[in-house]
């Protein structure tokens, strides 16, 4: 009911101001991305110039062709999809379980667990490269995508657990209890009450997990020695050589790398909306 009223309400001044600010912020924030796209479609002679060119009248796909036809593009794409989505799915499942555990259950060692999860994230990555390599070497997982997924899981899990814990904790326990009073089991109560409310959190963390593992460079570079096993970020830097940077192909490659992430978000965006409506908006 309330929403009907909200929708009909004439545009308030606040909304107009918000829209103006929103557009201004968007323009500023997007500029580097625009520069990437622009460079990707510019012909070579327009890319590096003292007088910058903010538009191009001669867009061409040659940079994309060069990027796609560079060695191992398809291998890298496949590997990245496997690694990033693999990491994301496993991380979300494990993290949701753990988040519910620490937000809803009391058990001995819970505080220690939360503490460890936090501290683990504080260790500088550069210090862990060699120890992780040695570990994976000893279980014969160096130069395998599985080893990379395992490594990414370890880096992504603490964050996902922490964030989801916040979202789970944000759902009042009373809601669940009410559902259980109505005859739901704990699991049903979780699935039907908590999960929809936690959905925005799941979306946010899934994007995080996806982007982290999609864009990670140094561990992938060190762990994967065969070029047909390399992931997209490793493939991408092959356009940066001691003999100069092929900005056109680099930006075209980066654009192609960004597309799947944006598409993924566009797809789950709808679910975000429906997840959100579970709260209050829908009448």
């Amino acid at each position, binding site marked *: 009911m309330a929403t009907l009223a909200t929708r009909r309400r004439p545009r308030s001044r606040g909304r107009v101001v918000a*829209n103006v600010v929103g557009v201004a912020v968007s323009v500023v924030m*997007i500029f580097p991305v625009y520069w990437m796209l622009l460079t990707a479609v510019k012909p070579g002679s327009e890319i590096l110039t003292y007088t910058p060119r903010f538009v191009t009248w001669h867009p061409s796909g040659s940079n994309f062709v060069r990027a796609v036809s560079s060695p191992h593009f398809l291998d890298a794409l496949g590997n990245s999809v496997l690694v990033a989505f693999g990491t994301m799915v496993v991380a979300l499942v494990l993290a949701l379980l753990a988040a519910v555990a620490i937000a809803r259950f009391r058990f001995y060692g819970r505080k220690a667990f939360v503490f460890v999860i936090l501290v*683990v994230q504080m260790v500088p990555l550069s210090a862990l490269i060699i120890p992780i390599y040695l570990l994976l070497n000893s279980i014969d997982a160096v130069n395998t995508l599985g080893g990379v997924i395992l490594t990414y899981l370890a880096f992504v899990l603490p964050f996902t657990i922490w964030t989801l814990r916040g979202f789970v904790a944000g759902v009042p326990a009373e809601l669940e209890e009410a559902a259980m009073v109505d005859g739901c089991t704990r699991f049903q109560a979780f699935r039907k009450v908590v999960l929809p409310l936690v959905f925005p959190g799941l979306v946010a963390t899934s994007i995080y997990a996806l982007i982290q593992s999609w864009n990670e460079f140094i561990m992938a570079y060190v762990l994967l020695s065969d070029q047909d096993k390399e992931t997209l970020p490793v493939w991408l830097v092959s356009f940066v050589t001691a003999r100069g940077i092929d900005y056109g192909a680099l930006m075209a490659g980066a654009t192609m790398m960004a597309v799947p992430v944006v598409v993924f978000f566009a797809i789950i965006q709808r679910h975000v909306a429906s997840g959100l409506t579970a709260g209050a908006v829908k009448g």
Partner: protein
Amino acid sequence: MSTQTEAPPIDAVGPPGTSAPRRRRRMTPRLVGYLLILPTVVVLAGVQGYPLVKLVLLSLQDLTQRELFSGLPAPYVGFANYQKVLTDPDFYVVVARTVVFTVVNVALTLLLATGVALVMRAASRWCRLLLTVVLICVWAMPQVVSTLVFNWLFDYEFGVVNWLLGRLPGVDMDNHDWYANAFSGFGVITLIVVWGAIPFAAITLYAGISQVPKELEEAARVDGASATQTFLRVTYPILRPIYTIVTVLSVIWDFQVFNQIWVARGSKPEPEYQTLGVYSFMRAFGVNEYSLGAAVAVVTVLLLLVFTVFYIRQSLRLGEID
């Protein structure tokens, strides 16, 4: 089914404490808790446990390339590496610089991200969509590339920013070097870092804000609270766990920032651009001083713990409330 997903608004639930009768339950909550965290514990103990133990051991050894390549045991040297780090006068300057950098960057990130999240909440649907797409595009841009683009924008020769500012009347930006003094140089680096950090923070905060029932805020408004008061009294308390996470993580990330500075300075950072991440690379990892690097890493963790102890306590306390 669908009727059941219609969760009642929070304020419709009876006061806490009027707990429901004990429901049928086969496992104790404690056991369920353990089972739920088991997979995570296995992964973390496996992949992080060994490297962490190894790291601490390493910081007490003197491992050189010789031992690393041959697999021979490295000699234990006690706290010599720590002594070396802690007696280096540069180290304290670097830590102080890192702390200032972190505080400025985290504050800016949180402030701007909160602003963006609130604008998203208040704006029309199309504008919200626009902002979301922009944030995702920014976030999705590979970091290798975004730092290169920023480098380009502020370049001495090809800089787009210099060119744009040079169009302003009376401004001569020919041959202006942003990195010639560390103050303006760090300004640019802050821009790069905050720009890159806003999407994550804003999207997470927005997800949190959208969990806050609009009715609560509207009720506060009706009661005569200003927008700021509503945010501080109603919205913020509900979002506190999320703010805690975003703050702590931002602190952790900004404290260790490396890539942005490294690339911005053309992989040759001057001493005045050394923060802890750069310092540890240049003094340790970059020159194969693994043990020294391990000691710096351990010290970094301890410093971060000091830095975040307030939040950890708060978080653990919050964790107990429910």
